[in-house]
């Protein structure tokens, strides 16, 4: 018998979770999957820092907090629609407020042909059967605790399909808004995204808050690219500064498919992103590029795990971290080139900039190769701003803060240069600048 863990407020807050009525409740398989995942989560609790994947991210303080189960008032909460707008992003839009779909804020009329875009809550009430495989998954690793919790409690999210061969011209905007409620609450969102063979999609994922709050949000997403599909995925995370956001994404890439991600992580007190990618088909290609910028006491942890499983697959990962004040960044980039994935090409670079003596960034690139004729390179650095460059700029009249911001954005520039949406690229750059203290 293992000793039973001491009761923690976080777990205690889940007492009524089993009897919660969620969209889709009543379908036996869904009820069973939710129940089993809830039991597994309650049994294991939040992972502690002994788990390798959580070594640098302590959840003790989170465990001491109690969150309400969702937000019953989410459908009527006032949200300023202008706060959701993103320059250069004017296609279909799906908006969630505190984890609940909001038709009034979304833009779903006149969807381009070949695009199916629905809130999960609707699909679950109508016909959840096609999602049975995705939603009845069991997360076996205790370090996947949040995915378990999400599987137990998610009642809404994005269901997006692109038909084979369809090219969706306008970017699809997925917007997750946090807004204050009567107390701290936890919301859970589940996304299922599939690009048919040879299709193309431009996706913008956007985390934002309408005002300060201390909610916990979890988001689990599956993204599947069938053979030859192309995905541009831009992600702007600018959630409330006191909030907690945990995201877990799985990406499956078929033969000759290509996914390109551009990630900008700015907001949140505690933010964790696990990205697990599998390059399953020959000549699949994945590019991930990201920047995380921390200030105050922010903690942002990115865990990248890429598996090359087929011939001549390629991955390129370029990440930059900037930490000021007492910010703490964590980056782990693990690449596995599996047996048989001959001719693969894997590159990973993570450079970090500390702007204060109290800031910290822990970076860990890992590379495991079990195949032949592989080209692989990885590198990570942590450094400070070049004092000579700083003085040079100041000697020409730029005030200290401006010179610092100029050098910091220059440090991050390479990451977003390849973002094709120029207007959005400029917005990313502005958002980054605005986040520097």
């Amino acid at each position, binding site marked *: 018998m293992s000793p039973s863990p001491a009761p923690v407020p976080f777990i205690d807050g889940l007492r009524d979770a089993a009897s919660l009525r969620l969209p889709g409740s009543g379908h036996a398989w869904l009820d069973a999957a939710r129940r089993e995942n809830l039991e597994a989560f309650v049994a294991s609790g939040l992972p502690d820092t002994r788990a390798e994947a959580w070594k640098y991210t302590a959840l003790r303080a989170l465990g001491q907090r109690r969150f309400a189960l969702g937000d019953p008032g989410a459908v009527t909460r006032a949200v300023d629609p202008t706060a959701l707008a993103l320059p250069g992003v004017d296609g279909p839009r799906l908006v969630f407020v505190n984890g609940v779909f909001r038709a009034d804020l979304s833009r779903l009329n006149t969807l381009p042909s070949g695009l199916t875009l629905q809130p999960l809550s609707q699909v679950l009430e109508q016909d959840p059967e096609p999602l049975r495989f995705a939603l009845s998954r069991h997360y076996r690793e205790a370090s996947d605790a949040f995915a378990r919790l999400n599987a137990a409690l998610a009642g809404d999210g994005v269901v997006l399909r692109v038909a084979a061969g369809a090219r969706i011209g306008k970017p699809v905007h997925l917007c997750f808004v946090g807004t204050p409620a009567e107390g701290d609450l936890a919301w859970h969102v589940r996304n299922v995204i599939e690009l048919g063979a040879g299709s193309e999609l431009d996706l913008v994922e956007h985390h934002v808050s309408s005002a300060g709050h201390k909610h916990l949000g979890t988001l689990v997403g599956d993204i599947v690219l069938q053979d030859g599909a192309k995905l541009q995925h831009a992600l702007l995370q600018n959630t409330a500064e006191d909030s907690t956001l945990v995201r877990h994404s799985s990406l499956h890439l078929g033969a000759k498919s290509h996914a390109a991600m551009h990630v900008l992580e700015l907001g949140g007190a505690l933010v964790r992103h696990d990205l697990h990618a599998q390059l399953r088909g020959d000549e699949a290609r994945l590019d991930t590029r990201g920047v995380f910028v921390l200030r105050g006491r922010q903690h942002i942890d990115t865990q990248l795990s890429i598996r090359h499983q087929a011939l001549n697959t390629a991955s390129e990962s370029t990440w930059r971290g900037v930490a000021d004040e007492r910010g703490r960044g964590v980056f782990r980039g693990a690449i596995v080139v599996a047996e048989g994935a001959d001719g693969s090409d894997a590159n990973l670079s993570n450079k970090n900039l500390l702007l204060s003596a109290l800031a910290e960034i822990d970076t860990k690139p890992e590379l495991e190769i079990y195949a032949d004729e592989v080209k692989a390179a990885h590198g990570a650095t942590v450094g400070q701003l070049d004092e000579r*460059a700083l003085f*040079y700029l*100041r*000697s*020409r009249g730029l*005030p200290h803060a*401006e010179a610092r911001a100029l050098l910091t954005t*220059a440090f991050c520039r390479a990451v977003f240069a390849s973002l094709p949406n120029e207007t959005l690229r400029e917005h990313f750059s502005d958002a980054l600048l605005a986040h520097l203290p």
Partner: protein
Amino acid sequence: MLKIENLHARVEGKDILKGLTLTVNPGEVHAIMGPNGAGKSTLGNVLSGREGYEVTEGSVIFEGRDLLALEPEERAAAGLFLAFQYPVEIPGVNNTYFLRAALNAQRKQRGEPELDSMQFLKLVREKLKIMQISDELLHRAVNEGFSGGEKKRNEIFQMAVLEPKLAILDETDSGLDIDALKQVAQGVNALRSPDRAFLMITHYQRLLDYVEPDFVHVLADGRIVESGDKTLALKLEEHGYAWVADRKPAHTSEARA
């Protein structure tokens, strides 16, 4: 314009400037010459406000203000410009963008309206004529991959755009071949005006063949030991710095007395 009195400065606990006194008036070109280790570059760095230089005694008044109390960017806005001996490469920062940001930051500090991109472009085109610098360099990152000559010309080009009242050229001639030296000198001469003064710090006399100074000062062991007109530079060229070293003890003992 610039009044340096009895300036003492140290770097890493070591006294470098030991009582330097110098006055520069508008329109004048002063050359500061001296052997290695005399404190020439320290003078430029102290005047421009680089960190790590501790002023232990003396004063510097620039345009009626206490220069040493100002931040480097405030000194720039007040009209001080340092052409670096080793211009810094700044990857990722576009040369033109940087220069416009610098000019506008200075104008803002002075309470002048900022230039929009069209006005700035017009100014740049005018100044390009002065410095033979190719358009292509303007579109690259600041000094990144520039040759030694290109870096120095870029410094003078920046000076042309920023239009300082006092320009300090820190060994701008070092590492230049004769053609590059002539181009740099041509740029400096084009910028000479009755309101603008120059302080040229140099080890060699050859820059002074192309930019004729009004005054030449010899710096040795942290002090000016000899001042004169341009013929002093020729004397130095003929006799070498040993000639100064021979004269130095007299001054030093005088200072100690």
